[in-house]
């Protein structure tokens, strides 16, 4: 299953520009199309679409949200093991290891490029111990 663009599309191209895997193709002012074989269901297109023209994998229409209110990962360092599963899962490489602490050389993940984060939550899904929440 993958996300899908319906006839409400206004051809603004915002979805194509934010898609981290370039799964969305189209021309300005005409309907865009998601390549189901490439889509990773990150939901960025659905959040950014101003025309409510995108449906998720279950068929529900995605809700437009202003970028500043998109959820972002918050790491619980008491649970985090520095295992980098979150960093590896991130489709836009916005997570990285923070600076090492002299008292604890096992560096923890931090949002190194917050402007790049698309709020997909794949990092939280990938954490083996549930140390990341999207807020």
């Amino acid at each position, binding site marked *: 299953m993958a996300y899908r663009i319906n006839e409400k599309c206004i051809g603004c191209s915002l979805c194509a520009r934010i898609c981290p895997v370039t799964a969305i193709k189209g021309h300005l002012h005409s309907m865009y199309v998601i390549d189901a074989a*490439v889509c990773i269901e990150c939901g960025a297109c659905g959040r950014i679409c101003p025309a409510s023209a995108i449906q998720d994998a279950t068929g529900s229409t995605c809700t437009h949200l202003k970028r500043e209110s998109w959820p972002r990962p918050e790491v619980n360092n008491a649970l985090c*093991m*520095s295992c980098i599963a979150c960093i590896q899962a991130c489709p*836009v490489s916005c997570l990285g290891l923070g600076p*090492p602490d002299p008292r604890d050389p096992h560096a923890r993940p931090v949002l190194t490029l917050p402007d790049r984060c698309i709020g997909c939550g794949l990092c939280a899904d990938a954490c083996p*111990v*549930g140390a990341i929440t999207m807020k």
Partner: protein
Amino acid sequence: MKPYRGRILWVSLTTGTFTNEELPESVHRMYLSGLGLAASVLYERIPAGTDPLGPDNILAFVSGLLTGSGSLFTGRWMVAAKSPLTGTWGDANCGGTLSPAIKQCGYDGIFVTGASDHPVYLYVDNHGPQLHDATDLWGKDAIETEEVLKKLADGGREPSVACIGPAGERLSLIAGISNDGGRMAARSGLGAVMGSKMLKAVVLSGSRPMGSEDPQEMVRLSRPCAHIATHGIPLPSGRVMPLLGALLRHLPATVRMDGRLSLPLFRKWGTCGMDQASVEWGDTPVRNWSGSEKDYYRKLSDAIDPDRVLAREQRKYHCYSCPLGCGGMCEWQGGETHRPEYETIAAFSALLMCSDLDTIYAVNDQLNRAGMDTISAGGTIAWAMEAWEKGVITSTDTDGLALHWGDPAVVQRLVELMITREGIGGLLADGSLRAARHFGHDSESFAIQAGGQEIAMHDPRLDPGYALHASVEPTPGRHTTGCQVYYDMYHLWTRVAGLPRPRPLSTKAGKYRADATQAAIGVANSCFTQLFNGAGLCMFGAMMGVDHIPVFEWLNAATGWHMTPEEYMEVGKRIQTIRQLFNVREGIDPRSLTISPRATGHPPLEQGANRGRSVPLTALMHDYWELMGWDPDTGIPTAQTLQKLGIHQDIAAVAGDAPTSV
């Protein structure tokens, strides 16, 4: 979501084409993924008698079944092909980030066939695979190569890279494949296979989500395991370690080891925490396996005091999904390098009688950059130094270089020559056995190897299990496939019915007997090792013991299967058996792959921790083969065993699925 993709990618470098092959679920149930998948496919697809450096050899990059499932310690990737070093089944295992990257591209494995007529690299992302020209990368070292390829991401998602350095390009038979700045799939010479195909690198930039059938259960299982790995007892100064080693040497009995005690040590120092202690208790070989702690005494081994090794460390390094972080990134010559591991330190200290930490750091960095196996490189230099001492090699052969034991400048020079294949380095770059056969004069007797591969830095005279497994392994000369101490730590008897439970204290003499218990331990080690190689589990995680690291429970929760531990151990036996079948089909006599007599105490050492000890290898191998269901005299799997394991039917099923073009 299933933790496996059910799909592999075929890359033909000869034609520059790609095909996807779908795998039935039965393949994963029979072989999991990882080395099991590689073995089932390569046994079917590599023609008998293939030249390991020819286009018909197939190089497989495979991920573990549990990678990305929410389990821990399961980020190991593996590479497999027919080995050019041993002529047998070849595989190597590595941490880093490539295992999840394979799955994030939508595959369980990438199988490379044919050969290109010019350097290329393979790039795969969510859109599929592409081949690119790598002429500008050819000649660059492994770390430079990775840096260049990552820069090509140009602000996008950073890829995972596996690549060869100059050693693989120059077809050194001890070349490995590097990932994540110098982590190395080092063994079996598979870097040369990659070089023979002119494949400089595999660059993986997919971002497909991974997961499991029961994510909540995976978290429930993983949390206690993570707690154990990250909350160990505090450790004292590194100066205590050689005292601990000496204490173990003097104890009249053997203590059953608990792997949970080793975790704090690995977390603090990494594997280098064991080096000085291991010299003291007789695990580390000294002076090309002819010496002992009395030759490499404390004043010399103080150079490898774990605190000294750690002094350059700037931060810990974690492989994917690892809570432990036994690696370390260290300052070196204005840049960053991976901290030398136990094997590298041992191979370039006690084995060569060398006592210079800077030399160890230097050769570690050089060999990582070159993409050359540090175990085989150290073992081969040890052979060369003994050959020099005995007059087998003279200054005529070395362009005037005197190969004196322990000379740091000579060690560094030999490493340089091996990497560039200049002078005597051209011979040494293919390992000690080939060099010994070139020079003759009985020098083969002190090329310490099994099947042509230098054995690792763990002395079978201390733990006879190393001799057994180095000799019965289809990839001979390996140390990660089993020993008596590993069995102690795996705690398999807590989950698998019928396995022997070692006593907390036992006599040291008992280790050197060949009996039914030792055979059961050996077979259980092999089956479990292949099981965790199918799962992508790190051996250090497995050392926690299956009562603390829920391998069997993770497998069921991730896949939705309901298999018993005994059934999973049968999967391991199936993988081990098909790897052995590969060798048999190549016409290799399993009896020819035995470890060098010196390493089994034939003749026994006259002094030191392992004084007077000999391993009854022939009897151990006989009993192991019999319990595996292989012919006890020849090591060839019996027809009855193959039928019981369902191997032939399954191979046919794999072969039946027609590939589709990408």
